[in-house]
C-alpha cells in the first residue's frame, strides 16, 4: 500500500465516522457539548496541525547547527592536500 493510499484510507475512515456522527438522527447523537465540538472538529485539527508545523520548523530552524570548525578544518585540509599532491607530481 502506498503512502497515498494509506492517507486516503485514513481520511476516508475518519471522514465517514465524523459524517456519521454529525448527520446522525437525534436519537443516536453524542451528548450536547460533544456534538457542538464535533462539527468544527476537522477545522480545529487542521489549525492545530498548522501550528504544530510552524512550531516544529521554527524550532528546527533555530537549532540548525553552523559548522564553523568544520569549515576551518576543511580549509586546512585543502592546503595540506595541495601541497602534498604538488610534491607527488600533480600538475593542477
Amino acid at each position, binding site marked *: 500500500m*502506498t*503512502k497515498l493510499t494509506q492517507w486516503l484510507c485514513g481520511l476516508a475512515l475518519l471522514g465517514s465516522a465524523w459524517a456519521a456522527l454529525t448527520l446522525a438522527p437525534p436519537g443516536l447523537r453524542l451528548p450536547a457539548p460533544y456534538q457542538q465540538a464535533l462539527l468544527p472538529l476537522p477545522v480545529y485539527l487542521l489549525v492545530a496541525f498548522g501550528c504544530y*508545523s510552524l512550531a516544529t520548523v521554527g524550532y*528546527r*530552524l533555530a537549532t*540548525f*547547527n553552523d*559548522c564553523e570548525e*568544520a569549515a576551518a578544518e576543511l580549509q586546512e585540509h585543502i592546503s595540506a592536500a595541495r601541497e602534498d599532491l604538488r610534491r607527488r607530481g*600533480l600538475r593542477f
Partner: protein
Amino acid sequence: MAAGGADKFSVLLPTYNERENLPLVVWLLARTFQESGNNFEIIIIDDGSPDGTQEIAEQLEKIYGSDKIVREIISVLFSSGTAYIHGMKHATGNFIVIMDADLSHHVSLYFIKQKEGNFDIVSGTRYKGNGGVYGWDLKRKLISRGANFITQVLLRPGASDLTGSFRLYRKEVLQKLMEKCVSKGYVFQMEMIVRARQLGYTIGEVPISFVDRVYGESKLGGNEIVSFLKGLLTLFATT
C-alpha cells in the same frame, strides 16, 4: 563477514567539471582510509567533463596506483543512478560509499566505524547530533527544514535527512535497491532510503558537516524547489 581486515570500501565518485575539487577529495579519502587501515578503492565516473577532470583523474591514478583509482568515462549526460550502475560494475569492495565530489560533505569518515553497528546502510545527516551546515543564510536553512518537514510527514522514512547524498551501503543491499528504484537525480537518493525501509534494511545515521561548495556553483533555485516537490509527490504516490 570477516572482521576488520577483510572489508574493502569502494567509493563511487560521479564527477562533472570537478577539476578543482577532485584531487582534494581523493587526497582526503586516501588519507582517511590509510589512517584507519581500511582497504579501499575510488571509482571516478566522469560524464565527459570539458574542463580537464579526466586528466586530473589520470594523474591521480599514477600517484595512487591503478588498484586504488579506477577511472570510468561516460559521455552521456547521466543521472546519479546511471553513474552508480556503471560504477558498481567495477567495484570490488563489499561496501560501497556514495558521495559527491564537490567537497560539500566534509566528514572524517568515522562513520565507517558506524557500520560496525552492522547496519545495512549508513546515512549522513545534517539535522541531528552535531551535524550541520556552513555558510547557509536563513532563507536556505528555512527551505531545507521546511522541505524536510514535509518529507517526514508525507513519507515517514525513518531517517532524518533524505536529500544528503553521503552514504555507505553493503554492496548487495545497494544492488537490490538499484533494481527497485526508478527516480532520477536526488529524488533517487530519497527513494533509496524509503525503499530500504520498506524492505526491512537497517539504517544508521551519522552527523555530517555540510560545508558549502568550495569551488564551483551550487545548484539551488526556484526550479530545484519545484522539481523537489514533484519528486516528493511522486514518491508519495508510488512508494
